[in-house]
C-alpha cells in the first residue's frame, strides 16, 4: 500500500519531466492532416507551423522541417549511343528511394547539423540513404536520380524555407506537386541549437485519392476487364454522339 503510493507519487512527479518534457519545448501543427488527390488536383501547399518554448526558445535556434513520402522503387536509366541511335542502356534500381522528400530550414542544413547527425537523421538530399541494387557502383546514377526528382519538384531542399518570428514562432510552406503518390507521409520538425537536436516532433500526413479519379484508379487496378470494356463503350458512345450531333 505504501509502496504503491510512493510509486504513484513518483510517477506523478516524474511524468512532466520525462516524455512530455521535450514535447513542451516544441509545439507544432499542420494546416491539414490529409491531402486529397481529386480530379482537379494541381498540387497542394502544406503549412507547418508551431512554436518553441522554455529553454529551447530564444535567439540562435534553428528549425528543420522535413516531409517524407512513402518509398517507391525507381529505375534510373542512362541513354547510350548504339549504331548512331540513342537508346536506354545501363540502369540502376533504387529500392529505398522515397517517392517524395522535402526539407526546409532556417539556414542551410550543412551549417546547422554536423554530417554524422544529418546522416543519422536523414536530413538533406546529400544524406538520403540511396543505394542502388545493381552491381555498378556509379555515383552518377544517384546524382541523376536526385536531379530528375528535383526537376519534378519531388525532391526539394529550401535553405530559407523556415521563417521564425519573435525567436519562437516558426512556419514553413511545403509544396506537394501533382505527381505525389498517395500513402502515408511523415512531417518531422527538429529544433536545433549548437549542432544538437533539442526537441523533435513527428506528425503524420496522409495523401489519399479522392472523388472520381480515385474510383477510376481503383477500378482500373481491381477490375481491369470491366474498365477496358467500359472505356470501349464510352468511346463508342462518344463517337455515336458525334455522328448524331453533326448529322446533316
Amino acid at each position, binding site marked *: 500500500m505504501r509502496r504503491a503510493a510512493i510509486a504513484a507519487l513518483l510517477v506523478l512527479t516524474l511524468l512532466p519531466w520525462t516524455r512530455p518534457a521535450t514535447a513542451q519545448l516544441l509545439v507544432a501543427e499542420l494546416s491539414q492532416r490529409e491531402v486529397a488527390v481529386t480530379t482537379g488536383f494541381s498540387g497542394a501547399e502544406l503549412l507547418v507551423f508551431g512554436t518553441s518554448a522554455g529553454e529551447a526558445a530564444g535567439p540562435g535556434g534553428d528549425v528543420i522541417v522535413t516531409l517524407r513520402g512513402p518509398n517507391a522503387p525507381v*529505375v534510373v536509366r542512362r541513354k547510350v549511343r548504339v549504331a548512331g541511335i540513342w537508346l536506354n542502356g545501363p540502369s540502376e534500381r533504387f529500392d529505398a528511394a522515397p517517392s517524395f522528400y522535402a526539407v526546409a530550414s532556417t539556414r542551410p542544413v550543412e551549417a546547422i547539423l554536423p554530417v554524422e547527425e544529418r546522416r543519422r537523421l536523414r536530413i538533406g538530399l546529400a544524406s538520403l540513404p540511396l543505394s542502388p541494387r545493381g552491381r555498378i557502383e556509379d555515383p552518377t546514377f544517384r546524382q541523376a536520380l536526385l536531379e530528375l526528382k528535383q526537376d519534378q519538384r519531388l525532391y526539394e531542399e529550401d535553405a530559407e524555407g523556415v521563417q521564425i518570428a519573435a525567436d519562437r514562432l516558426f512556419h514553413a510552406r511545403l509544396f506537394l506537386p501533382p505527381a505525389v503518390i498517395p500513402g502515408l507521409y511523415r512531417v518531422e520538425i527538429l529544433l536545433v541549437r549548437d549542432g544538437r537536436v533539442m526537441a523533435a516532433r513527428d506528425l503524420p500526413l496522409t495523401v489519399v485519392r479522392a472523388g*472520381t479519379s480515385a474510383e*477510376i484508379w481503383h477500378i482500373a487496378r481491381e477490375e481491369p476487364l470491366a474498365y477496358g470494356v467500359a472505356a470501349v463503350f464510352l468511346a463508342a458512345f462518344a*463517337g455515336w454522339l458525334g455522328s448524331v450531333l453533326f448529322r446533316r
Partner: protein
Amino acid sequence: MLVYLPIAEMSVDALLVVGIGLVVGLLSGLFGVGGGFLMTPLLMFIGVPSAVAVATSANQTMGASVSGLIAHWRRGNVDIKMGSVLTAGGLVGSAIGVQLFRLIRQIGQVDLVVAVFYVVVLGIVGGLMVAESARAVLRRRKQVRRRLHEHFWMHGLPLKTRFRQSRLYISVIPPLLIGFGIGLLSAVMGVGGGFVLVPAMIYLLGIPTGVVIGTSLFQVVFVTAAVTVMQAVSTQSVDIILALLLMAGAVAGAQFGAALGSRLRGEETRGLLGLLVLAVAVELAWGLLRRPEQLYTLGPAL
C-alpha cells in the same frame, strides 16, 4: 484549367488536350484517317508516359472511328465479310502486339521501340504516298490510264472466297495477313492503322475505292476496341479521362476537317497527308539520332 489524369498520374491543361484532339480530328476528317499516328507522339510530347499515350490513343481512335463507321454504314459502304476477315487477322495481331508491348515495357525500351516503329512505318508509308500522289498529278497531265486490275502471285493462293460487295474473288490469306500486321501496329503504336490499311486494301487487294474507307473503319473499330481492353488488362495504362478529353476535341475537329476536305482534290489530299506522315517520321528519327538533353531517365521499377 488543370485536370488530374488518374492513370497517367499527372495533371494537364484540359484546354491543351482538347486542342490536340481538335487538331488531330481536323486532320483525320480532312484525310479520312484515324489520326492515331499524330496523337501518340503529341501526347508523349506533352509528357504523358509512352505506355499511357499508346493505350489511350487506341481508345480515342476507336471513338473517332465509330463516328465514321456509322456514316459509311448508312450509305452501305461497308463490306462486312471483308471487314470480318481483316478483323480476325487484326485480333490475333493485336493480341500478340499487346504481349510484345508488355515485354518491351519490362525491358525498359518502350520509348525506343515505339519511336523506331513510327520512323519505319511512317517513313515507308509517307514516302509511298508522296510518290504515288506525285505520279497521279503527273498522270493527270499526261492522260495515261492505269490498268484497273493486275494479276500477280497473290491470286494463286488457296482458300478463295467471294467478297460480293468488293466485287472480288480472292484468297482469304492476304486480307488475314494484312489484318494481322495492322493489329500488331495498332497495339505497339496506338494507331488505328487506317493510313496503312487503306493503301494496302486498294493496291494489294484491289478493293474498290468506294467501300475501302467504310470497310477499313469496320476493322479499325473492332481492333482498337480489342487493343483497348487488352491494354487495360495487361498494362493498365488506358486513361479514360484523357481519352474523353481527346474525343471531345476530335469529334468536333473531324467535322471541320471533312468540310475542308471536300474542297480539295483526292491526289492533293493524299500528297499532303503523305508529307505530314513523313514530317512526323523525320521528327521522330531526329529524336533518336540527336544527343538527348537528358542522358538519364527516371522510371518506376516494374
